[in-house]
């Protein structure tokens, strides 16, 4: 019989040190641990090293607040609700964020290696692109590949000839093993079993690859319920270090079968994120203007949350207006 280690949002964010390497659950604007993102901004985290299979609104919130020093990923934006990742782009152009680009599948390879305890993972995807241009090894140019940081590999990637079947050159992508996985999951059992609904993205891999794991649970349920259908679970209790139970903990990103993406909220953030001042005003209102997650929800208001609430059969909101018609 395992048990879970329940802590508060403030305690959880307090565990994250400046300079730590972080990775997150979810996909672009779905199932991101937003409550923790906001709290890390409130606590003024600095020099974070983000490894993300893909970025999203959460990345932009952290980058806009100046929390991010290193960003390894392949994409950042807000899907239909914000074309670009303005804060990361600003950081890259102004040189305040060191950006290391990989392809999406390269990032998956790196995380899979980390999840399986392998130092690297082979892939033949995205060969012949500038992602592999040695001139664009930005961590290398910044002198970060000298082995002094155990979280940064000695090489951005390697190439070896296939010794088994002579298929030609293939890439080796270095493992990614973050200090922390910060995960949002719809259901966590009272013994720590974790279930996410609909697409699993790379959540199971993020949990395995990280040294420590914090999970924001939309709800905590009996483990025995999750164990009735074990094939649907993505992690066991012993893989989870801390659990926070927070309804709407992923807002404004979506949580399948609980609530939809808050498109209007993300559109407004995107507009604000286009300038440092704009971001600051937005953050003053939505991050520093509320002391707790409960105040944040109160500020959003009941009706807004009801509009976003997922239809329990379809798994997404059937009442929110999405398009122009």
């Amino acid at each position, binding site marked *: 019989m395992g048990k879970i280690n329940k802590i508060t949002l403030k305690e959880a964010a307090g565990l994250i040190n400046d300079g730590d390497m972080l990775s997150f659950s979810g*996909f672009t*604007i*779905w199932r991101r641990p937003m409550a923790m993102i906001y709290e890390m901004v409130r606590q003024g985290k600095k020099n974070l090293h983000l490894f993300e*299979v*893909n970025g999203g609104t959460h990345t932009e919130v952290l980058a806009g607040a100046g929390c991010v020093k290193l960003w390894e*990923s*392949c*994409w*950042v*934006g807000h*899907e*239909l609700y914000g*074309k*670009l*990742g303005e804060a*990361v*782009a600003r950081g890259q*152009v102004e040189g305040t964020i060191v950006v290391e*680009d*990989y*392809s*999406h*599948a390269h990032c*998956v390879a790196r995380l*899979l290696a980390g999840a399986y305890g392998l130092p690297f993972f082979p*892939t*033949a*995807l*995205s*060969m*012949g*692109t*500038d*992602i*592999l*241009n*040695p001139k664009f090894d930005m961590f290398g*140019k910044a002198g970060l590949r000298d082995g002094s940081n155990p979280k940064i590999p000695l090489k951005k990637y390697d*190439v070896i000839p296939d010794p088994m079947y002579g298929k*030609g*050159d*293939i890439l080796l992508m270095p493992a990614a093993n973050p200090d922390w996985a910060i995960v949002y999951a719809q259901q966590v059992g009272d013994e720590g079993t974790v279930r996410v609904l*609909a*697409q*699993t*993205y*790379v959540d199971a*891999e993020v949990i395995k690859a990280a040294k420590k794991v914090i999970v924001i649970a939309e709800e905590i349920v009996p483990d025995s319920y999750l164990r009735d259908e074990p094939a649907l679970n993505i992690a066991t209790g012993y893989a989870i270090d801390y659990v926070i139970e927070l309804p709407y903990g992923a807002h404004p990103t*979506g949580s*399948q*079968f609980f609530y*939809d*993406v808050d*498109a209007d909220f993300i559109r407004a953030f995107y507009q604000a994120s286009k300038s440092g001042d704009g971001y600051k005003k937005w953050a003053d209102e939505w991050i520093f203007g509320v002391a707790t997650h409960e105040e944040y929800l109160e500020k959003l208001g009941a009706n807004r949350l009801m509009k976003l609430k997922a239809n329990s059969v*379809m*798994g997404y909101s059937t009442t929110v207006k*999405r*398009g*122009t*018609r």
Partner: protein
Amino acid sequence: MTAKNYAENYKGADLLAVAAAREVNDGDIVFAGTGLPMLAIALAQITNAPNAVCIYEAGSIDGRPKDLPASVGDARCATQSSMCAGLTEAFYGQLHCGYVDLAFLGGAEIDQYGNVNTTVVGNYAAPSKRFTGSGGNPDINSFARRTVFIMVQEKRRFKEHVDYITSPGWVIPQWPSGEMKPKKEVYGKFFNGGPSAVITNMGVFRFDDNGVIYLDTVHPGFTPEQVKDNCSFDLNISRCKGETEKPTVEEIDLLYKKVDPEGIFLP
């Protein structure tokens, strides 16, 4: 078969979606990105390719959305899917495994070999502008048998050389040396194919045996010369075989009433 009833009134995006849908062969296993590609595959599945299946990189395979997804990670992608897993399954279990026939993708800049840039403007080491980044574009494009790019036609987007090769075309650098070589040589026995068509608001482009782009058909209302004027490189228009087939009334109807009734990608 009765004569087709072509639409007279349609928008540029409508023709893009319809022309793209017509690139799908029945039974194709299609790996599609967010946006117009989602419209195109959805339309194809209810017109010319009822047996085509669609994979989205977030992990849904052969989903049957009741409502149009707004992105590939959308909960709507999972409805009635055959498998719903994650990125490892999509990229390695399906794409790297070799199942994918057709990639449906977008791009910000393209060169005459089909190399696409979705990463930066200017020198990557000190860029003047950052786009979203590669996402799965180069992965899907690099292993699919055929790739269709859907893009906006502008002189500054159709370039002699793109600022950054995000997604591989037919002639690409082999690293670490960086020597430009045919994709087939760079990929060795991993080679499956490459870009087969580029569809813009002005025409449909294909690639010759040397992997060089040429104008295949020009959209109604444009001339090959106008298209050439909207390329920075010397576009081959000598093989242009005429006008792109117009959308039919039925196709436009399906697009607005069945595929995107909420007006998500088609305002």
